[in-house]
């Protein structure tokens, strides 16, 4: 049971897309998997000490809305912040864990989190901005673990 391994590549950094890698990572760890998540490009946002993840229906026509909002209005200042707080309130009401909580559960469960050093450089992020538990590496680092994993997921 304990030899199973799961490797995930997390590339997205919106509030909604921060969930899949953390939910699957923490659950797999609870099931006895050894888990490693490689965060690259926008996925690095999930590793920030000060999380500021957002969501918007702009460019995401599948997002359910309480009432239809014309696209041009969705682009108005303040809309993104309003949609983000509405989504967070809805999640809390439905008993969905916060990203902070899921991330903490991953750390507790010893899910290994690797930040892609190339994209850290690209976006001028400092190591001090990201969680202290994060390790840094590149594509070869990912394959070292992924090559012996039972499941590999790209998100």
């Amino acid at each position: 049971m304990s030899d199973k391994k799961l490797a995930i590549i997390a590339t997205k950094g919106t509030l909604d897309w921060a969930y899949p890698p953390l939910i699957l990572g923490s659950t797999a760890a609870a099931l006895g998997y050894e888990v490693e998540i490689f965060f690259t490009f926008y996925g690095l946002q999930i590793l920030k000490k000060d999380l500021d993840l957002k969501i918007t229906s702009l460019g995401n026509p599948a997002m359910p809305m309480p009432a239809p909002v014309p696209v041009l209005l969705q682009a108005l200042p303040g809309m993104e912040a309003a949609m983000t707080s509405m989504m967070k309130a809805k999640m809390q009401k439905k008993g969905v864990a916060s990203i902070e909580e899921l991330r903490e559960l991953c750390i507790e469960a010893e899910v290994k989190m690797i930040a892609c050093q190339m994209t850290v450089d690209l976006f001028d992020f400092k190591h001090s901005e990201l969680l202290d538990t994060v390790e840094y590496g590149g594509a070869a680092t990912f394959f070292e673990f992924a090559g012996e994993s039972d499941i590999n997921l790209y998100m």
Partner: protein
Amino acid sequence: MADFDSELDASGLNCPLPILRAKKALAALESGQVLHIIATDPGAIKDFEAFSKQTGNELMESREDGGKFYFLIKKG
């Protein structure tokens, strides 16, 4: 209902929190001891079956009563 050694109320919590909390609660038990879990997430029924199969902790009972779900898991 069978006896249990510890109880976890996961009411109001959604996936994957009931499983993660149960995992933590089981870690505090000895092998052979039983955890009673209360949940309101309908997804928990299949999830606890799957959790049980994959972790070697026996799902002794799974029942629904008045919109709530009750599970008994014996630590393997």
